[in-house]
C-alpha cells in the first residue's frame, strides 16, 4: 500500500557527518544530478542513508500494519470470489512489506531491528491504517482511494535515486493496480445495488476521502525536509502536487459511480484545469500520527500479539535448522 510524507514526524535535523568532505558530498550530488542510481555499497552521505532507512522502513511497516484493516473483512467477505481476491490482496501487502524490508536491509539495518522499532512504537507507519473498516464498502473505498493514493506516491518512487528502493517499487507498482481496480469494482457493484448498498458506498467515501488526502503528507510549506529529499531525488514531486493529481483523477471516478466526495468546496477550475478543494484538517492528521487516531492502540496491540504468538514457530524453525545442519555435518 504505501508510505506518506512521514519524514517530518519526530525526525531530528539532518546533521552532516564529521568525516564527510566537501569533495565527497559534491561528487555524490553530481552522480545524483547525472541521474545515476546509487547502490547499497556505494559511498553515500550518512544523512542520505538515514533518510532512506527511515523512509523505506516506515513504508514497510505501513504495508505490514496495512493488512489489519482489510484483514478485518476476510472472514466476512460477501462471496467466495471476493474473499479470494481480498486474501490475495492482503498477501500482496505482506509481500510488499517484505520487498521493502529487504531494500532497507541493504543499507545496513537489520530486519530484527526494524521489527523491534515498530513493535516498541519507535517507528511510524502511515496514518491511514489507524482508521477502522466499519462496513464492507470500506474495502472498496480502501482499494480505490487508499491504494489509488499509494499508486500516485509510489510511481515516482520507481525512479528514486536509490537502486534497491526503486526496484522494489517497480515490483510493488505492478501489483498495486489490481488492488485499485478490485476496490473500484466493489464500489461499482454497491452503487448498482439497492439504495441501502449505495448509501453504504457513499458512507465509506465520506469517511475515507479526507484521510486519503492526508496520505500525501503536510502542505509543502510545512514539509521542511522535502527540499533535501527532492535534491537527492528520493522524492520527485511535492506532496501538494501529488495530492492535486490524485484529486483530479478520482473526482470524475466518483461522479461515474454517482457518489459525491464529502467536500462542499470541491469544484472544477476551468482556468487551471484542476479541482479546487476545501481545507484539510491537519490537526486530525497530527493527532493520528501522534498515536491518537481511532485504532492506533489496537493496531499496535494486534501486531505485538501476532509477534508473540509466532515466537514458538520461529524458535522451532531455528532449532530444526540447527539439528539438520548438525546431522548433515556428521
Amino acid at each position, binding site marked *: 500500500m504505501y508510505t506518506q510524507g512521514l519524514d517530518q514526524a519526530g525526525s531530528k535535523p539532518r546533521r552532516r557527518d564529521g568525516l564527510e568532505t566537501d569533495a565527497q558530498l559534491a561528487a555524490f550530488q553530481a552522480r545524483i544530478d547525472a541521474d545515476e542510481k546509487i*547502490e547499497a*555499497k*556505494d*559511498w553515500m552521505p550518512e544523512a542520505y542513508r538515514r533518510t532512506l532507512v527511515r523512509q523505506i522502513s516506515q513504508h514497510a511497516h505501513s504495508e505490514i500494519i496495512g493488512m489489519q484493516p482489510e484483514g478485518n473483512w476476510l472472514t466476512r467477505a460477501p462471496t467466495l470470489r471476493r474473499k479470494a481476491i481480498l486474501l*490475495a490482496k492482503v*498477501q*500482496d501487502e505482506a*509481500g510488499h512489506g*517484505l*520487498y521493502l524490508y*529487504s*531494500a532497507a*536491509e541493504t543499507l545496513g539495518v*537489520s*530486519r*530484527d531491528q526494524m521489527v523491534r522499532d515498530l513493535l516498541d512504537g519507535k517507528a511510524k507507519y502511515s496514518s491511514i491504517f489507524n482508521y477502522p473498516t466499519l462496513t464492507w464498502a470500506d474495502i472498496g473505498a480502501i482499494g480505490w482511494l487508499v491504494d489509488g493514493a499509494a499508486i500516485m506516491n509510489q510511481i515516482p518512487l520507481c525512479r528514486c535515486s536509490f537502486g534497491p528502493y526503486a*526496484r*522494489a517499487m517497480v*515490483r510493488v507498482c505492478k*501489483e498495486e493496480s489490481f488492488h485499485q481496480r478490485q476496490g473500484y469494482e466493489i464500489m461499482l457493484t454497491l452503487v448498482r445495488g439497492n439504495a441501502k448498498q449505495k448509501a453504504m458506498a457513499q458512507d465509506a467515501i465520506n469517511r475515507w476521502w479526507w484521510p486519503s488526502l492526508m496520505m500525501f503528507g503536510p502542505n509543502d510549506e510545512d514539509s521542511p525536509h522535502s527540499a533535501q529529499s527532492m535534491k537527492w531525488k528520493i522524492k520527485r514531486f511535492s506532496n501538494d502536487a501529488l495530492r492535486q493529481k490524485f484529486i483530479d483523477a478520482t473526482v470524475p471516478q466518483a461522479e461515474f459511480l454517482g457518489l459525491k466526495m464529502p467536500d462542499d468546496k470541491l469544484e472544477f477550475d476551468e482556468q487551471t484545469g484542476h479541482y479546487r478543494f476545501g481545507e484539510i484538517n491537519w490537526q486530525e492528521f497530527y493527532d493520528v500520527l501522534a498515536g491518537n487516531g481511532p485504532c492506533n492502540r489496537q493496531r499496535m496491540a494486534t501486531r505485538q500479539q501476532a509477534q508473540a504468538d509466532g*515466537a514458538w514457530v*520461529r*524458535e522451532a*524453525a*531455528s532449532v*530444526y*535448522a540447527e539439528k*539438520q*545442519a548438525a546431522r548433515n555435518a556428521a
Partner: protein
Amino acid sequence: MTEKNWPLYEVFIRSKSGLSHRHAGSIHATDDQMALDNARDTYTRRNEGVSIWVVRSSQIVASDPAEFAAFFEPAKDKIYRHPTFYDIPEDVGNM
C-alpha cells in the same frame, strides 16, 4: 526471549526458460528449503518464475564499488576488442 536472527538469502529468478536467473531481492529463512519456499511466496505470486536460486548472502563475494575504476581498468584501453574498431570497405557487404 532468546530469538536468533535468521540468515539472509539472496533470491534469483528465471522468469522463463531460455533466460538467465536474475536477482529479485532477498528473504530470511532458517534453512535452504525454507529459503526456497519463502522466495516462491514472496517473489513469484503471479507466475513470475520457472526456477529459483537462493544463496546465503554471506556466501556472495562482491567487487568493491569504491575500487571499481581500478578494478575494471584493464578493459578500458582495449578498443580493438570491439567490432567497430575495424574498417571494412562497404563493398565487402555485411560482416
